[in-house]
Structure formats: C-alpha cells, structure tokens
C-alpha cells in the first residue's frame, strides 16, 4: 500500500515566511510522490498547529509526517509527541530544518525558497522509507556507586543516602577523606579542615544506607544507564576488619617504619598502619612492601600482640560485584611533581616545600605538631610563597589552578600568626580572589604586612650557589642556610633577588596519572588538560556523555572546597533524579545485525566504542547487545557486508534523503 505523507510548512511568524515563500513550498510539496496533503501554517508548534496535525493524522490516515520548521534539535520531540498522541509512531515524523539552516542564513528570497524545497523533498523521500520503532523502557536500579571518597564523593554519598538511596562508595586508599583531610585550615574563613570534614567522614562510615568499600578499586564497568554492573577489587588488608577492634596496639609494636604518605614523607608510619588518627574506617592495613614478614618471612609481631586475632597473612584480594543505577566519578586530582621544574630547587634544597608538605607542617596533628620550623629545627625569619608553579605556564599547564592564590594567602596568615616578626613574600602573577569573602581576605592579608611582589619566580638558588654566580653588584648578603628567589618585579620593572629561609611552592592541580585509564573504564571523555569532560560547560556541568555517569570535584578540573562540595551535591541530585524515575526510555534507533548477511569478519567488534558487539563463535556471527548500543551508526558504516542496519539512519533512508535533496 502506498504511503500517505502529510507535509506542513511552518511560517514561524515572519522568521521563515519572511524569507521563504511558504505557499510555494507547500504547493511544491503537493507534487511530490507519496504526499497526500501539504499545508502551510503560522506556528506549527502552537496548540492549534499541533491539533491540526493530530486531526489530519486521524482523519486522513497519514502514515508519515514532514514538518518543515525550525531545527529538529528544537521541536522534533514536540512533534513526535503530537504524532504519538494521534496514534502515529513517533519515528514516522521527519523534520526539515528550514529556519536555522535556511531562512535565517539566506539573504535572497528565491534562493531560500529553492533551498527549502530541496530540504522538504529530502525529508519527504526519507519519510517514505521510515519504519516504526519502539522506545525501550528499562528499570533503574535504586542504588548509586561513588568512586572516590574525597569531599566531593563524601558530599554526594551523604546526600543520596539521606534520600534513602543505597550507596556504594569505593575508595582506593585505606581511608576516605582525600586531600581535604590533609589540610590544616581552610580559606578564607580559617576554620579547621579536620573539624568540618571528620564529622562527615564518620557519617559516611556509620550511615545505614552507605556501604563503604575502602582500600578497593573499580576493576571493570559494564552495563548502561540505570543498570551498571561494576566489579570492585577489595584489596587484601591482611587484617580481618570484622575482628579488629581498632585498638592500635599492632601499629605501636610494629618495628618497621616507612615514610608516611599522608604526611608527605615528613614523618614515618609503620608497616601496619592507618593513614591518620581520624581515618574512616579506622582499621589498619598491612603494607606488603614495608612488612618484614612479607619481605623476609619473619616477624609477625602484630599477630602476636593482636588479642582478637584479627591479623590474617593469608588474606587474598577479593572481587565484589555491584549493580547500580547511577555512577558518580569523584576521583580527584593530583598535585604536580615539582621536580619537573628544577629551576625552583624542589627536591634539591631541603627548605623548598610543596604546598601539601607545608599543609602538614602547619597541621597541629602533623609531623611538627603545627610548628613552622626548618628541617634543622630553626624558626624561619622569612618565607617566600611562589605562585603559579606549573600553572598559567606554556611550558607546563596553561590553565589556572584556581586555588593557589587563596591558600597562599592562608599560608601567609598562618605564618604571621605563628611567627609575627617573619617576613612573608608572595611572588604572584595576578591575585585571583574571586570567591565569596576572598577579596576581603586578600585585603586583610595586605594589612597584615605581607609583601606582594608582582612577578613570577624564575629561579631559586641556595646561598652557596648564589654566592658562586653573584656579581655582587646588588650588595646582597646571603648565608649558607638561606635560599635566594629571583623574579622580575613587573610593577617596578626590575629584577629582584630576595633571600629567605624557607620557600613554599604552589604545584599545579593536575589530572591524576591514571585519569586516562579511569576515563576508559567509565567511558568519559577528557579535555586537552586531561581532566574529565562535562557534557556541557555551563548547562550540564556534572553530566557526561555516558548517560548515568556523573562527575564531581577535582577530577573535572581545579576547584576549591566550596565548588567541590557544590558539585558533589549537584551530581547527587542528578543521580537522584535518575533513580527516582524508576524506569527510563532508552535509544530506539540502535543498530541491528542481520545474521544472514554477517560474514563474521569481526570489523565491527573493534570499531564499537561501547563494546556493544559480541561474537558468537559457534555461529561465526557478530551479535549486538542493544542495551549497550548508543546508536552512533559507526558499525553500520564499517560493515563490508551491509549486514548492520543503523535504525532510523539506515543506508536506504539516507540514500532516499540524498536523492530528495538533490532532486531539485
């Protein structure tokens, strides 16, 4: 039976009709094969416009509709819905974009009309080859997985768990807390980081709706929005955490010490350890690489002193499988390794510190119990803080790390508080104090007598090095224990050399070394800077192109704690709005493999970015997993046998459209 197509040319007021002769286009459409009726109308998207469409579908028995109007990205859904309400399969609707891509971009009325006719002819030809498709509905698992237990993940977990969602939190380290747990004070309010963070950590650990999987890593992710399946590797702690009471005797008695990661190597921890006293969970793990028993087969002191008998040297990694409806990736950032900038002397001169080292030095629970002292125990009389080390720098990272100006001010305040007579120098390019209360904090620091030198530090010398190269025309006297910072003061327009006792660097915020690997596991794109890419920089800041997977915090880009927490909550709310729908509609225009035509060449297997195509070895045929297919159609373009049909964008449909647009 020949198809009956209805064609509607929208005036869109004068937006289309002002440039395109809509009556002429409607008249032209009437002459096209398969067209039963063609009309032009003032506003097709208006209620009367849609009612007319529905009425025609019913009364004329249309089995295809072409709407020549604005972009399909604008109103395709509107007209699909109207068709459905009139009993027509929504995939039998075709839009001809005669506004954004015709009337608005063409000056000449005759040319615009001609182009509109061609686009309508293409749409009609395509509509004739359309086939009805069914949207598939799938259930959504009422749970969420959060990967990374820093403050972003913690916030998201608590928001979701409080809403009654089952939350799984996977954290690679033995404790949650992330970078924020290492900080001393937070800018600009100077509230103690641990005081505001640890209650939230404890809440995660004890929440009935949160299953915390610390010392664990995501191994494999499969499935799709609403129905992800995730394999989690639970790393062997060699301590049975069900038996362990957290008394800490094992850590006290363990005879082997290594550098503490948490204290940035400024203190030692034991081979059996919890990273810091407020860790959640507060149960120790044994570091195989440091443990004498694992290295030499002797010791087992911890086992001897453990009364509940929790030590288990035979423990193995185990794999746990989770089913989850939504995933939030909050894997954080890393601070740039400052040895990459040898001119700054990090790793060479003892008194050049990274920001995290200085955080620990400042921290009342840190290696010096909060005393700012040099490694040989002197109180510094002068400290230089060097901004933008690795950020806003063509040679390292072009982007701004966004938090350094503010924590550099915080450091200056803390130094002044603890050593009022110390001279503090800030070597900066620009002060970026954009947040709430930030500019005020900057002004406060100016009043506290901190010296601001507008110039990026170019070089750091030890006293000895300096004396060897100095030509002595500056009259600068430098002793062996001192360091010299050189910069160009761009306000004075001259070179300055400042001797100090201690230097703090502000390493660039970086995407983690394994961001590529993590991105691949969760099918996340990354920007040129290596951070995970949001779906839209403004309007979808925590969504990603992988439906059902959201991002939050430092893994998306450099940001401070307030922004990180806001993103954690935002990601939780996006996950919640997905989970509470319980059922969602997914792509109807997936690919389809014709078994008869498939030659078993396997070309499509590698080309599919979603691993949606498997191979049936017995039949020697490719098999499509529709649930995983996102309908890009790349496989269809690759298949040499023409066995793969990209539904709704099938070869015959595209061919028909090409014939149509070229027919005039």
């Amino acid at each position, binding site marked *: 039976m020949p198809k009956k197509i209805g064609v509607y040319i929208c005036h869109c007021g004068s937006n289309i009709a002002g440039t395109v002769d809509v009556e002429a286009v409607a008249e032209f459409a009437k002459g096209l094969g398969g067209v039963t009726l063609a009309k032009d109308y003032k506003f097709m998207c208006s209620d009367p416009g849609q009612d007319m469409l529905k009425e025609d579908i019913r009364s004329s028995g249309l089995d295809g509709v072409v709407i020549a109007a604005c972009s399909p990205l604008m109103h395709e859904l509107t007209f699909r819905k109207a068709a459905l309400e009139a009993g027509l399969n929504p995939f039998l609707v075709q839009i001809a974009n005669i506004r954004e*891509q015709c009337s608005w971009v063409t000056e000449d009325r005759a040319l615009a009309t001609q182009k509109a006719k061609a686009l309508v002819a293409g749409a009609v030809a395509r509509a004739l080859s359309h086939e009805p498709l069914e949207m598939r509905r799938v259930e959504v698992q009422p749970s969420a997985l959060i990967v990374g237990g820093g403050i972003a993940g913690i916030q998201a977990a608590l928001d979701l768990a409080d809403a009654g969602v089952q939350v799984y939190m996977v954290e690679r380290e033995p404790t949650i807390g992330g970078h924020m747990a290492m900080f001393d004070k937070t800018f600009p309010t100077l509230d103690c980081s641990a005081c505001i963070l640890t209650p939230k950590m404890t809440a995660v650990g004890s929440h009935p709706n949160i299953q915390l999987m610390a010392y664990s890593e995501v191994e494999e992710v499969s499935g799709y929005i609403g129905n992800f399946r995730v394999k989690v590797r639970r790393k062997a702690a060699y301590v049975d955490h069900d038996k362990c009471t957290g008394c800490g005797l094992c850590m006290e008695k363990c005879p082997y010490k290594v550098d503490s990661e948490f204290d940035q190597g400024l203190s030692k921890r034991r081979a059996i350890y919890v990273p810091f006293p407020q860790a959640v969970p507060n149960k120790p793990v044994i570091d195989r690489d440091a443990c004498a028993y694992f290295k030499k087969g002797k010791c087992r002191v911890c086992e001897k002193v453990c009364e509940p008998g929790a030590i288990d040297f035979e423990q193995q990694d185990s794999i746990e499988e989770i089913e989850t409806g939504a995933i939030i990736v909050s894997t954080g950032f890393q601070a740039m390794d400052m040895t990459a900038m040898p001119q700054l002397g990090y790793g060479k001169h003892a008194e050049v510190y990274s920001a995290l080292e200085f955080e620990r030095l400042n921290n009342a629970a840190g290696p010096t119990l909060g005393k700012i002292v040099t490694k040989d125990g002197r109180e510094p009389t002068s400290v230089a803080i060097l901004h933008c080390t690795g950020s806003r720098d063509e040679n390292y990272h072009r982007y701004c790390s966004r938090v350094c100006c503010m924590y550099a001010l915080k450091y200056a305040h803390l130094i002044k508080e603890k050593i009022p007579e110390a001279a503090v120098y800030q070597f900066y390019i620009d002060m970026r104090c954009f947040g709430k209360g930030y500019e005020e904090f900057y002004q406060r620091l100016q009043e506290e007598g901190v010296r601001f030198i507008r110039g990026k530090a170019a070089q750091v010398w030890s006293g000895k090095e300096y004396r060897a190269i100095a030509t002595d025309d500056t009259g600068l006297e430098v002793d062996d224990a001192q360091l010299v910072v050189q910069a160009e003061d761009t306000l004075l327009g001259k070179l300055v050399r400042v001797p100090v006792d201690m230097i703090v660097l502000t390493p660039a915020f970086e995407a983690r070394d394994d961001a590529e690997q993590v991105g691949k596991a969760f099918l996340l794109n*990354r920007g040129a800077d290596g951070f995970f890419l949001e779906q839209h920089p403004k309007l979808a800041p925590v969504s990603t*192109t992988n439906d059902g997977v959201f991002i939050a915090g430092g893994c998306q880009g450099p940001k401070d704690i307030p922004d990180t927490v806001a993103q954690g909550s935002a990601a939780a709310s996006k996950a919640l709005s997905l989970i509470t729908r319980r059922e969602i509609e997914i792509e109807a*225009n997936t690919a389809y493999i014709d078994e008869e035509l498939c030659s078993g060449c396997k070309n499509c297997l590698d080309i599919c970015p979603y691993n949606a195509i498997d191979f049936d070895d017995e039949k020697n045929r490719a098999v499509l997993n529709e649930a995983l297919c*996102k309908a*890009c*159609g790349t496989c269809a*373009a690759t298949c040499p046998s023409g066995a793969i049909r990209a539904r709704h964008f099938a070869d015959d449909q*595209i061919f028909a459209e090409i014939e149509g647009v070229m027919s005039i």
Partner: protein
Amino acid sequence: MSFEPKIVGFLCNWCSYTGADLAGTSRMKYLPNVRVVRIMCSGRLDPTFVMKAFSQGADAVLVAGCHPGDCHYQNGNMKTLRRIPLLRRTLAQLGIEPERLRLEWVSASEGERYQSVVNEFVEQVRKLGPLNLELDPSVERAAG
C-alpha cells in the same frame, strides 16, 4: 548564468549540525548551496553516502564532525578521519577531483566557522566547475 554548485553536507548531530544551527540563530548569512543530511555521528558516514551524492549530481560533498577528542561517541570522528583519504583516492580513480570531498571539524559553538567553511567550499567548487561524470568510452567496463 554563472555556475552554482550543488553540495551535499553530512553533519554530525552533536557538534556540526548544532554549530550550523548556531550560525542560524546568530543570523550569519552564508551561501545556500549546501543541502544538509543529518547523521548522528560523522563515524556513520558510509563511503557509499558520498558516492550516492555524486551519482545524484552533487558537485561536492562536505563532511563535518566534532573536533578530535570531542566526539559524542568517543572517537567516531577519528574513524571518519581515517576513511576520508582512502575515499579520496577512490574518487580520483573514478575521475572525480578529490578536492570535491571535504572534511571539517565544526564544534557546536562554531557557527562562524560553519559559515566560513561553507562559503569557502562553495567558492572552491565554483572554481572547479561542474562535476563531469561522463565515463571514458574507451574504457571497457566489466559486465554486471
């Protein structure tokens, strides 16, 4: 009358088609010679689409997709990037100037770029003149 080429444009849904829409929303005027066929991903571009367009009388074909790294489907655009040189070589063997097939990256925010790509390409094809697909009668073609 001067020669006005007909060009078929295959635009990916997420970047280039949206970029073309943006040119419209911003009322940027450009030459009307390109007739757009929307595909979900530039990776969907089956070489036969290009052949079909030429066989239907197109003087040129424009393919536009997301910039490398920005593909909505991860890397479909890179697959197209690899197909195009091969396709160009085939076109040359058929007597079609390879310049008649153009691949461009146009992001959703590059309305202006779409405008200039279209204008430039139309100008270029105007200079090339109409596509002449008449086959050389001296070449014997295999039956079938």
